[in-house]
Each structure stands twice: as structure tokens, then as C-alpha cells.
């Protein structure tokens, strides 16, 4: 994950508390989405950014996961994400995200 985004996630978490932060990932590939999810849960796996060695354990979902999709207006979802959902390997992304949450997230809800 971009170093600047890591800094922003860290600042927001410090300000509002981990309980009140949910990270929504939009990466187009399972592996890249998983790396971003790992960064905001276990810490930066590349040890380059502000989250290196900082396991925030946040709630993290991808925009094509039902946990996010079911929470938003379906018309707006179709307008903004429907096309991408058609194109992406949704199953692989969901599997990767689930695996990262199970391993590193402090929230199992």
C-alpha cells in the first residue's frame, strides 16, 4: 500500500479509534487487495511505510464483498461498481479478503 495511504489510515485510526474505522479496498486483483488488507491488519508486509510493525487489526472489506454491497443503495452500486463487478475475479478477491480477515483482523463480525 502507498506510503501516504498508510499514513492516512494510521492517523484516522489514532483519531477515531480502531473500533470506529472500516477500510474498504478497491484493488482490482486478489493479491493486491490482499496486500492492502494485510497492511491495515497485520502491518505493512514490505516494512517500508508507517504501518510497518503496526498491527492495527482493522475491519477491512473489498467493494465487491457482500458485507459492503448489501449496505449501500443498489442503484448507486450498479452505477459505480456494477461494471467492475462483471469484470473482476470476484470469487478470488472474496476468498483472499476472508483469509486475511481470519488471520489478522481483531474483529470477527
Amino acid at each position, binding site marked *: 500500500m502507498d506510503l501516504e495511504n498508510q499514513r492516512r489510515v494510521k492517523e484516522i485510526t489514532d483519531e477515531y479509534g480502531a473500533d470506529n474505522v472500516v477500510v474498504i479496498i478497491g484493488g*482490482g*486483483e486478489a493479491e493486491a487487495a490482499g496486500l492492502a488488507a494485510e497492511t491495515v491488519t497485520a502491518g505493512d508486509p514490505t516494512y517500508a511505510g508507517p504501518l510497518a510493525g503496526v498491527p492495527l487489526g482493522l475491519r477491512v472489506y473489498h467493494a465487491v464483498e457482500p458485507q459492503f454491497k448489501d449496505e449501500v443503495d443498489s442503484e448507486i452500486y450498479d452505477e459505480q461498481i456494477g*461494471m467492475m463487478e462483471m*469484470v473482476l475475479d470476484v470469487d478470488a478477491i472474496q476468498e483472499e479478503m476472508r483469509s486475511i480477515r481470519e488471520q489478522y483482523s481483531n474483529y470477527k463480525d
Partner: protein
Amino acid sequence: MFPSLRAASYVLVHAPDMVIHNGSTQVVERIVNPESDYLKKLPDHLRSFEEVVAYAPNQVYIGNLRPEALRDVEEPWFKHSVESASEDGPMGRIFEERLLIGLIKICDAFDLVLLEEAFVEEIQPELDTLHLPEKFAKLKPGVELSRVMAEIEERHAEPLQAGGKIVGCVKRAHDIDPNLDSHVIMENLVVKATGVLAGLELLKKSDIDPLSIPYIIECSEEAAGDMNQRGGGNFAKAIAEIIGADNATGSDTRGFCAAPMHAIVNAAALVQAGVYDNVLVLAGGATAKLGMNGKDHVKKDLPVLEDVLGAFAVLITQNDGVHPIIRTDIVGRHTVGTGSSPQAVMTSLISGPVDQAGLKISDVDIYSVEMQNPDITKPAGAGDVPNANYKMIAALAVMRKEIERGQINDFVEQHGLPGWAPTQGHIPSGVPYVGHALQSFKDGEIERAMIVGKGSLFLARMTNLFDGVSVILEKNPGVAEEAGVSKDEIRKMLSEALRDFAASLGE
């Protein structure tokens, strides 16, 4: 009349030493973790010049292979060299780092580059093959290596290395100003020198007289300037000088990866408006992006595939009745109000021009999107970028009920191409296909192509907005522009002649 896209050239420079010393991933790593395993292992993952030449995507870039041919090469492509590969191609050439270092000195107008004397002797015959204008053809005598080393060790000069050996350095141009430090000057001289190579290749391969060029637009991603005007410019004119375009002026256009498309639209407009007869659009390469994904490549025990600097040049002329036209009336734009979701971006760039022209998405024979080489991006977890873009265009066609969902893969095959461009930011963005498109129009294989450029403006922290521009190229209907006589004038002359004729009948 719509302007013609007359010629295109493409240059790669194999730069393994610059991967190690100038790529931003490596520069950051040396600051953060100088003893890292990655930096130790990196030299063992660099390719030879011969390997780089025989790499199929690079052969496509300079025109020795058609993009479609990559479909027949088993992935990963770096494992399957092209047997008949050549460093010279119909659309450009692959150069060695040592020649670039010589050319950097030629491009150095302020004596900021020192080259070691033996290297000067060695490289001059190679520079002679570029046929530079006489005043730029010969290197000044070199200096002793001890002087180069003193500049590097005592005065923050950036080393210039060839084959792992220091052969010169780039000095800083100011003691305090970070915009003129040796790292920035080196980056900018590389942009200038690689831009020169692309310009020279276009002039040579398309037999264009440099004196016939009145205007140049440079559209890379670096900024030339000082602390009072960080991006003041002007690479375009600096390059024009070296390639012998003595009648030209020029300017720089910036817009991240979308800049080449902005530049092509600007150039087309200047030509169509009659401001200039032709405009040369060109861009040099980015040392910062060398080895950008090197950590992933090394971790997966692959060669570091981001080992080339990319450059290109495109010439836009008045309609010549032969070369494809640029449809300036239906330019696609991502506007402020468009929104940044991929769906909104694709709708504005693809559906926009297609709808304006009264076409269907499938009426465009080939789309050229971000043509990043998937050999590079897949191991870095970024997937196959062009393929993802083509799927989005196909999905757009599904949503418009032009094709069925089950036809997405067929659409990608018919209207898309595998990616072959190095991940040099502005280089992959649409423009690598222009040269191949010229050939396909000539061979009658296509009637219409769309070139799409997209840019991530948020990287500059000035806006969260995305950006993009797209243009349609069409087969030339075959009517050349008559100098000084417009269509309206011809109509007027005809009607006057008919009136005179009718009057003479009545007499």
C-alpha cells in the same frame, strides 16, 4: 479538414546501471534499508543487452513483431526469446546504456556532465552513428577519472556507470536548490537525451527534414526548472535544438500518463487550425521508474524486467490524403463532473466519442488502452492491465446491450491486444499502438482505432480526480488538403464558374 497522423517512432534504452542507482524503489531502499537482501540480490537479476533485445515485448515496441504475435508466445515471455530479434526495427531502435551516457554529455549545455577520457574515446564512434547535427556531433575531451571521483565523493555528483564501472558523473547545478541537485539534473538529462533519440529515429525512419518542423510538444512526466519555477520547462525546445529542428519552438504538456494524449489532441488542434503545418509530439523516459516493481521480481526469482527507458515520437501533419485522420470533433474527455469510478471513467472515454460519432463500441476495430506489459505487472500483483481495460470496454458494451455477457472474451480477442509497453508511466498510455496502427491502416486491416490515455492525478496531491482523454483515428478518406484553398473557397469558386457559364449561355 482533420489532421493526419503521419509517423511514429519508438526507442528503448537498456539501462541496468540506472536501475540500481537511479530507480526510485532502489533509491528509497538505500536510504531506508541500505543493507537489505533486495539490494544485494538485485545485480544478479539484471538482464544482458542481448536478452533485452530478444525479449518479445521489446521487439513489438520497435515494430519487428506485431502485437498480435505475442498471443503465440508462451507466458512468461521473458523465458521465450525471439530468435530473429534485432536491435533495429521499422519503428525504432533499442540502444545501450553507454550510448545514452555519451548522448547525455552531448545534451549537457551547462558543463554539468563529466566523462572520463577513455570512455569519451570509446563512445565517440557509436555517437557518430546517430548522425547528429554537426555542432552537436563531437564530445569534448574527457577528464581524468580522479576528477570524476572527487566530484562524486566531495561534491554530491551523481555517478554515471556503464557495465558496473564509473565512467563519469552529473554535477549538481546549485548548492542549495533541490530542483537543481545532481539527481534531478540527471533525471532531466535522461528525459532530454531519450527524447532526442526518439526524435532522431522518427526523422530517420520516416525521412522527415528536421527543418520542416515548426513546433514540438514534449509530454513526459518530469519537471525542468529551479526553486522559483519548479516545472518551468522546456524540454521540447531543448530537444528541438539537438535534433536540428532549427525552425521549431515548442512547449511541454503535463498530465501524468494522460499527457501524450493531451499533447496529441493539442497538436492536432494546432495543425487543423492552421497555426502550424505540423507538430512533433515526443517524450523521453523516466529513470525513477526503472525497477519500480523490482522487489516483487526479485522475491519471485524473476529477472528485473523494468530495465529499459522508453521514449516515443509522433508526427501530426495537415491532412495528406493518405495517413489516418485524427477525429478532433469527437474527442473523449474525463471531466471534473465525470466521477472517478472505473465505470464512470470508461463511459466518458469510450462511450463519449463513440456516441458522438453515432457508432457502436464494436465499430472501433482496435482499442489501445494502457498497454503495460503483463510480464512485468502480473508478478507485482497488478494483474494484466490492458486485459482488464478491454474487459471493462466489453462490459460497457454488455451494459449498452450491444453484446451478450458471454461474448466478453471474444470482444477482448477481437478488439484488444496483449500489452507490450514498459511501465514507464506516460509511455504505455495508448500511444505505443500508434505506430502499429499506421501499419494496419496502410495494410487495410483496420478502418478505425481508438487511442486512450489515462492519468492518476492524485499522485501530485493537488486533486483526488482521475483524468483521461481518448481520440479516434480513422482511415483517410483520401482527399488531401490543398495549401491555401479551403473547401468553402472551392465551393465558392465552383459556383462562380457555374454562374459565369450560365450567364454565357444566356448571351
